[in-house]
């Protein structure tokens, strides 16, 4: 692939978004809505193969000279993220077509805009441009979070907008500080700058702080478990695949390029990451609603992913990236399957659901395997993801090794028991007696007796099951996947090829 084709990852979804507003028919809108992420995902796959020979592709957009222009850069890490996020987004959008939510006006256009922002944020090599693409990603999300909504979702929309606008302001100020202290916001020119100058280090830290809020790292995580479960399951799956993950990607990229190694304050990172893992895992106990429990598990997952950065060895970063890929897919599967159950029985509360293991054995099997992946049991991608993190910790310095291995195992036990609580509430027990059928006008209908033939339909369960199969595939072909992660990690530990490709 020619480097000049990189802007297409942004241009194609944006164009499709414009078309989706003009063309109103359900079939063409669905083709555009699912076709574009499938296309960018295939593009990401193509880039992955391309990067085996050429590690970095860089395009100076508009043919301005290097250093002045805004570069779009792709390496193995970028390509991997584009591939995984676009594929998961496509499956989340497939779920939206099954619940009928895609027939809300503007949902196809908004979700395509979201993809354009995500791809741009993953590709860009310029901090201010990152801010702009993050905004391009967030603006449609403000509408998406409330659009399929009932009254309650508007309230959550407020929380989401206020938190994200405040965070974006901090990000903007941070980018300004970087420009003031280093004289450039081009990431390649900033390589190693934060390690040399304390003022640049402080400025970069402000940028990283704002990204940490967007990722949901612990002292600043409070918005995530409130906002996400309150939207519909399809939209939550969409958000969980992109928002926090783009923030995590940016943290990985900016941290490793500007510090070229561990930051002087990496001890803080260790403490914050350990707290994130434990608080996320143990807060799951307090929840009685499936998707709220999953949102806390997302917080825990963010902590696990950042272990790679806190240790900063090639293997730890590879393990962190592996965990990120596994987490995107597993979370998508769990959220979409929970959504299918909610859509069918009208509730996600443990006490309103019971006996699904007998009523929907296949859906239960999908859910069980995804929960295995979440906790880290074989056969699942989560098993290798956690083994990788433990191994990376073991080979690190003494106290970090003790801290992280303890934290990972204690958090896994917590997640296991919390998952068992979910399982015994939703899947075991006597059969339910009544339910709330889906109602197009009111969202949920009145509580009525549950007939024998009402089951989670195959078309609703299929998207979640597809993602579950994807994580099983990662488990089976882990040997083939790991070298890709290692190459992605090399791009972060050795930034010289990245700098050379951009600045020529």
């Amino acid at each position, binding site marked *: 692939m020619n480097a000049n084709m990189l802007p297409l990852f942004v241009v194609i979804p944006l164009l499709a978004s414009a078309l989706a507003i003009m063309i109103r028919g359900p079939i063409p809108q669905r083709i555009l809505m699912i076709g574009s992420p499938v296309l960018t995902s295939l593009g990401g796959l193509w880039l992955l193969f391309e990067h085996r020979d050429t590690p970095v592709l860089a395009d100076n957009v508009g043919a301005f000279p290097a250093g002045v222009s805004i570069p779009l850069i792709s390496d193995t890490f970028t390509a991997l993220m584009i591939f995984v996020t676009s594929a998961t987004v496509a499956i989340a959008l497939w779920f939206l077509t099954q619940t009928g939510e895609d027939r809300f006006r503007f949902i196809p256009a908004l979700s395509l805009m979201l993809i354009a922002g995500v791809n741009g944020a993953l590709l860009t090599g310029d901090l*201010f441009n990152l801010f702009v693409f993050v905004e391009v990603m967030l603006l449609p999300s403000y509408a998406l979070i409330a659009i399929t909504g009932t009254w309650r979702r508007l309230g959550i929309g407020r929380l989401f*907008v206020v938190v994200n606008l405040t965070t974006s302001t901090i990000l903007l*100020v941070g980018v300004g500080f970087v420009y*003031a202290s280093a004289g450039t916001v081009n990431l390649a020119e900033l390589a190693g700058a934060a390690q040399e100058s304390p003022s640049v280090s402080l400025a970069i830290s402000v940028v990283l702080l704002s990204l940490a809020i967007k990722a949901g790292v612990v002292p600043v995580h409070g918005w995530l478990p409130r906002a996400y479960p309150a939207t519909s399951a399809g939209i939550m799956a969409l958000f969980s695949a992109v928002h926090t993950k783009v923030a995590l990607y940016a943290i990985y990229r900016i941290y490793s390029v500007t510090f070229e190694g561990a930051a002087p304050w990496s001890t803080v990172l260790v403490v914050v990451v350990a707290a994130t893992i434990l608080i996320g895992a143990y807060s799951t106990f307090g929840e009685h609603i499936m998707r709220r429990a999953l949102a806390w598990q997302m917080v825990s997952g963010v902590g696990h992913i950042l272990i790679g950065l806190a240790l900063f060895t090639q293997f730890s970063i590879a393990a962190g990236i592996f965990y990120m890929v596994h987490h995107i897919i597993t979370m998508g599967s769990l959220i979409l399957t929970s959504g299918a159950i909610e859509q069918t029985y009208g509730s996600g509360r443990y006490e309103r659901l019971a006996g699904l293991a007998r009523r929907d054995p296949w859906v239960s099997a999908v859910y069980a395997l995804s929960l295995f992946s979440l906790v880290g049991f074989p056969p699942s991608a989560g098993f290798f993801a956690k083994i990788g993190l433990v191994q990376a910790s073991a080979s690190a310095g003494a106290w970090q090794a003790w801290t992280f291995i303890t934290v990972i195992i204690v958090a896994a036990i917590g997640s296991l028991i919390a998952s068992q609580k979910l399982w015994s509430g939703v899947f075991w027990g006597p059969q339910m007696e009544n339910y709330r059928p889906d109602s197009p006008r*009111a969202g949920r209908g009145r509580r009525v007796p549950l007939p024998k033939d009402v089951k989670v339909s195959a078309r609703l369960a299929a998207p979640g099951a597809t993602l579950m199969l994807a994580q099983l595939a990662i488990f089976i072909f882990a040997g083939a996947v790991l070298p890709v992660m290692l190459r992605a990690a090399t791009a972060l530990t050795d930034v010289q090829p990245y700098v050379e490709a951009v600045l020529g």
Partner: protein
Amino acid sequence: MISVLPITIGVLVAGGVYLMLQRGMVRIIFGLALLSHSANLMLLTIGVTAWRGEPLVDRMDVATAADPLPQAFVLTAIVITLAVTVLMLALAVIGHNDDTKRMPSTGEFHDR
């Protein structure tokens, strides 16, 4: 002259944070507007430590012209903040009433 911008920024941040800690959505919106104005002024101080000429090629000597990049940053940031402010004002009108504890009867059921 140099201390005018920092003092203005400080006042804007203080007012913005104060307003954001209030209950009403409209006040939070005003708070965010103040906060984003302070961020914009902060960006301006990066390029302009004193009053300088317009950054126009051929018209102005590079030595006396202002740095155009922070101005471009501010322009972009203003546009984004404007759009989000409009959306938030819409949410303030159609969302919860600020002190309502019960849901209005919209014919929807809230049993997630």
